[in-house]
């Protein structure tokens, strides 16, 4: 790919990118959110057409008219958001758009054979062709997408942030699959925020910044810090900025809290000015715990004590009034109303101060909102802009800002840095540290262990709905956390 350029409206997403992919290599594409990684790969896979530039595949000019033609030429992409039809079977999803047919009728046996061949490469026999896709785990769904790519003779396979929703175990199995594909001569392009992963799986890498390729080479020749410097264009002296804060009186206390299935009896105490980390694998019940505390999921037994007042069962509305705020892990689906404005999203949970007899004073709200956006350092054109137009990091700042705007003292943060680039992550850490310094209490759920160890005061591991002892973060070793999380160590 040479000189690839693409403009979306007023944004120049790509400004003349060059990229060279060799047969049978794993090539990592790294860069901050908005650097143009996904756009570049959409150009490669035919989903987006470039304004300028040329591509060659096997020394022949390559200009796919759409994703289907790209797949026919052997280029397939697996998106970050899964693109399966949930109601259809695995088989129907794998051959969607490429069904073997005769006079418009499906050739059942032929399709089954092709799908079985593709699934065989995955070496996941539990994925059965006639299973409905909506019944599969996210990891299995992702593999179905890989199988879809394998249906045609794939030469280049693009994986966009494939591990962002996977457990460590599933990620390991995915890496094994990537290696098998490499052995078959497939070129795998690997987009990721996780440099640990890049160093583990990739042979070579290219860094994109502001729509340009700014460097690359053999992964082995570069240190992680060097790659980060290339990505952000400045040296990142501190990945986890520390804001000094002091731990005060207990603010939130859980006693043997149990939900319908998860969690299964969790007790912990969260203090003012404390950041308490909750580690664990997907399905351990971390999200369920936060939801139960916030009143979104039913509480079966146990107590939730806020400010020394016990109220095991409450609605989210009552919890908000008690000063609890929840940041959803699913920013796009649940956390934000993407098509609504930044101002709306920031103030949804507390419109009271701008209302009088049910009327909303938009003028007063606009003034308050622009003040907040400044404090949160949200980069946007206009507070009335749809929040969905912002980058992931800025969206997350708006989502976090809503909790602050509603005056929450206890912040339940579920994966606050998911889908956020390295630079914005540091800003979010600083924001969280600043909140603790103001005396707020933070419960920080994350699947990214380095950030928990870097940011939290104390840390606990949730596994199968039960909580490990809570210990100062400095006393945890990563291996120990993983041992608890995967259940190989008992509490």
């Amino acid at each position, binding site marked *: 790919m040479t000189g690839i350029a693409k403009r979306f409206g007023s944004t120049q997403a790509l400004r003349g990118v060059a990229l060279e992919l060799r047969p049978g290599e794993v090539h990592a594409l790294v860069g901050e959110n908005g650097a143009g990684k996904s756009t570049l790969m959409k150009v490669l896979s035919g989903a987006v057409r470039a304004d300028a530039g040329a591509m060659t595949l096997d020394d022949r000019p390559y200009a796919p008219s759409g*994703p289907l033609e790209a797949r026919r030429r052997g280029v397939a992409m697996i998106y970050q958001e899964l693109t399966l039809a949930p*109601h*259809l079977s695995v088989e129907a999803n794998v051959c*969607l*758009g*490429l069904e073997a047919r005769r006079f418009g009728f499906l050739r059942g046996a032929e399709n089954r054979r092709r799908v079985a061949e593709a699934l065989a490469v995955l070496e996941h026999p539990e994925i059965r062709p*006639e299973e409905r896709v909506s019944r599969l785990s996210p990891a299995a769904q992702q593999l179905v997408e890989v199988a879809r790519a394998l249906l045609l003779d794939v030469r280049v396979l693009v994986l966009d942030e494939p591990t962002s929703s996977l457990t460590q175990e599933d990620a390991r199995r995915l890496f094994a699959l990537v290696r098998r594909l490499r052995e078959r001569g497939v070129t795998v392009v690997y987009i990721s925020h996780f440099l640990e992963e890049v160093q583990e799986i990739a042979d070579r890498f290219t860094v994109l910044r502001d729509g340009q390729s700014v460097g690359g080479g053999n992964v082995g020749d570069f240190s992680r810090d060097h790659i980060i410097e290339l990505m952000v264009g400045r040296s990142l002296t501190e990945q986890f900025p520390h804001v000094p804060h002091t731990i005060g009186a207990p603010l939130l206390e859980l006693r043997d809290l149990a939900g319908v299935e998860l969690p299964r009896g969790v007790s912990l105490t969260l203090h003012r000015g404390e950041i308490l980390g909750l580690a664990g694998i997907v399905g351990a019940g971390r999200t369920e715990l936060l939801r139960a505390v916030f009143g979104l999921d039913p509480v079966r037994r146990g107590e939730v004590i806020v400010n020394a007042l016990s109220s095991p069962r409450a609605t989210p509305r009552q919890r908000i009034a008690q000063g609890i705020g929840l940041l959803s892990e699913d920013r796009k689906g649940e956390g934000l109303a993407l098509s609504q404005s930044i101002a709306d999203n920031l103030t949804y949970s507390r419109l009271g101060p701008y209302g009088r007899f049910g009327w909303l004073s938009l003028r007063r709200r606009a003034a308050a909102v622009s003040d907040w956006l400044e404090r949160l350092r949200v980069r946007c054109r206009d507070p009335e802009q749809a929040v969905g137009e912002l980058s992931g990091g800025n969206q997350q700042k708006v989502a976090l800002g809503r909790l602050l705007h509603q005056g929450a003292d206890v912040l339940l943060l579920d994966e606050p840095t998911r889908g956020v680039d390295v630079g914005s992550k540091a800003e979010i850490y600083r924001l969280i540290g600043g909140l603790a310094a103001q005396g707020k209490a933070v419960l920080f759920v994350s699947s990214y262990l380095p950030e928990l160890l870097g940011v939290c005061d104390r840390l606990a591991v949730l596994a199968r709905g039960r909580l490990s002892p809570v210990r100062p973060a400095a006393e945890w070793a990563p291996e120990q956390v993983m041992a608890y999380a995967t259940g190989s160590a008992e509490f």
Partner: protein
Amino acid sequence: MTSDPKSLAGRRWFALSGPVIGLAGVLALFLVLFAIRGGLGRFVSAANLQILVHGERVTALAALGALLVIVSGGIDLSIGSVVALVTVATMLVYIWALGVTGSKAMASLAAVPAGIGVGGLCGLTNGVLITRLRVAPFVVTLGMYSAAHGLAIWLAGGVILNFPVNAQPGWVDTFATAGSDYTFFDPGVWVALALAGTVAVLLRYTVLGRYCYAIGSNEATARLCGVPVERTRVVIYTLAGLLTGVAGVVMFAKMKAGDHTAGKGLELTVIAAVVIGGASLSGGQGTVLGTLLGVLILAVLDNGVSYCNVPVEVQYIVIGVIIVANTALSQWQRRRAE
């Protein structure tokens, strides 16, 4: 994630269990009612089965079209008006062709395809407007609902068009009578059953059917996989229109007239039947068998209520309750199954 093959087949039946329970419930209700009040023998009889099925043949035909549309994530509100328009168009063509050829058979041969064609044309228009103008199906078919209604009144000159004296063809009577001495069910029911089989095969064994579910389940994915979403949509609405056309011709035979008031409110009955039959209004879900069960539930209600001498308004209330209760039941089952 793991499961045994038995449960897969089981799950297919499970999806139908909602409508089956619904039907069993409604049947049980009336059986008990008739057992107490008397007249059970009259309710459970071959003759009543003929009447019961006969009464819903138009609904069934239109529901097949609506099923295609709903599975693909769309909606068609124009069904009732299009049926009315088809009855009028069929009668006009019949009278015209009779004048030209003087033969009832020839006139019928011209009128029936013309009527079905008018339905198809309405469906085609819906599909083209939805895909080209990118207007929501709800709005486009709401527009068609009004336009087709107006067109029907205009073409009919504001009156109900009856057959000219001694010009009524014989087949109309056989379609209008419940049951048959030779084939048990009347031809209208057989047409509905045959088309139901065709639509079932189409949904299950053809590429078009597969795309229908794919578009309803996740349109963006379908597009990404190279499914010709727009073209498929136009075909779906056209097929639905043709099925509505057939429903219209059967309605024409039932009314023995070109009646611009025919089919009033049919679209809602039809959507109710499809939804009671387990289809999801958000698309990607629904089967022919379920839809037929949905139609049967409505048929039993209709029939049972008329035997009970309960006022018709009670029937409407009961249908409303059943739609909501049935959907709630299937939602609850789905949650439990997950």
